[in-house]
């Protein structure tokens, strides 16, 4: 039997890299050889025992890899194709999927909250050498040759989730946005930590580095009318503080 290395959850604060049997693709499934993955804040919740999964489960849900084996009925792909698979794996057939609710898959039944999240939750996940992809026809996304693994790995979860926050809010031109989190993902030049200050939403052109921003439709800070400003205006800070509107200086996972 062929084996693989995989990250196995055994209990709170107990994960181990272990040898497990390599998965085989059944009907409608695929096996990919993982080339790149990452760790999510949700994995930390699992590790700390804050989100329950079964001991013995391989964790991780952000896979980039190469198709190793295709099960019966999976068409349009070949072994060796580079693929990205989303963290959430909708079946593409159930009421939720066909209603456009791509994260609430009921696996052919109805609609199930968190039902679409299977990797590293209800089935073995991506922090391993090989990964079994369910409903492969709906979930294998071929990676264009121009893109590297590194450019796409964060799309599986945090980019899809982050953009979805803006989409779900139905943001329109000229709206004002605030972003409360441990990190700044949606503004341009992502990766800069902002500690939950005010920001332009993603359709704004620039974020104001102090965050005291009213989008004015031209990508400029409404207070300073600069594209990039620091808005170090004590009065404004005090005004905000009086309103009880403190910045969400949080520490958490991202």
């Amino acid at each position: 039997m062929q084996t693989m290395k995989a990250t196995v959850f055994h209990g709170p604060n107990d994960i181990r890299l272990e040898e497990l049997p390599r998965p085989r693709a059944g009907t409608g499934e695929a096996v990919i050889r993982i080339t790149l993955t990452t760790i999510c804040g949700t994995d930390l919740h699992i590790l700390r025992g804050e989100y329950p999964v079964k001991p013995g489960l391989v964790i991780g849900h952000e896979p980039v890899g190469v198709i190793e084996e295709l099960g019966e009925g999976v068409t349009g792909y070949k072994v060796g194709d580079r693929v990205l698979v989303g963290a959430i794996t909708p079946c593409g057939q159930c009421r939720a999927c066909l209603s456009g609710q791509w994260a609430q898959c009921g696996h052919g039944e109805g609609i199930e909250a968190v039902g679409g999240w299977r990797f590293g939750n209800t089935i073995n996940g991506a922090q391993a050498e090989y990964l079994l992809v369910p409903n492969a026809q709906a979930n294998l996304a071929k990676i264009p040759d121009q893109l590297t693994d590194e450019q796409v790995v964060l799309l599986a979860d945090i980019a899809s989730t982050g953009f979805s926050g803006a989409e779900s809010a139905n943001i329109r031109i000229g709206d004002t946005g605030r972003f409360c989190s441990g990190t700044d993902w949606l503004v341009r030049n992502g990766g800069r930590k902002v500690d939950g200050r005010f920001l332009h939403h993603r359709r704004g052109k620039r974020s104001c580095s102090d965050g005291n921003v009213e989008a004015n439709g031209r990508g400029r800070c409404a207070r300073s009318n600069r594209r990039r400003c620091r808005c170090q205006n004590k009065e404004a800070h005090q005004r905000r503080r009086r309103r009880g509107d403190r910045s969400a200086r949080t520490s958490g996972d991202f």
Partner: protein
Amino acid sequence: MAIEALGLQETFENCLRSLRPGGTLSSLGVYSGKLQVPYDAFAAGIGDYKIVTTLCPGGKERMRRLMLMVQAKRFDPMPLLTHSFKLDQIVEAYDLFGSRRDGVLKVAIRP
């Protein structure tokens, strides 16, 4: 509009308090324990607020569209990958990521 992206009482409430009447709180965070909605932050229910939540849309079409955005240089997720580990070092990677040391944002894991 306010986007909540952590899953804490504090971030949720700060978002709620940022809303104009009729505004939307869009929450991505995963919560644990009790989440409370103070009546003053909620304008006692007469603020026409909308609270929506999102998990993470999946599937190959969503991924295709996201990859197109990267390809078209609409956004670049690369700066978020701050550290790199072999799969063999995964326990070490969890330790770093969990402790938020060394400016870590996301870690690349390569088998």
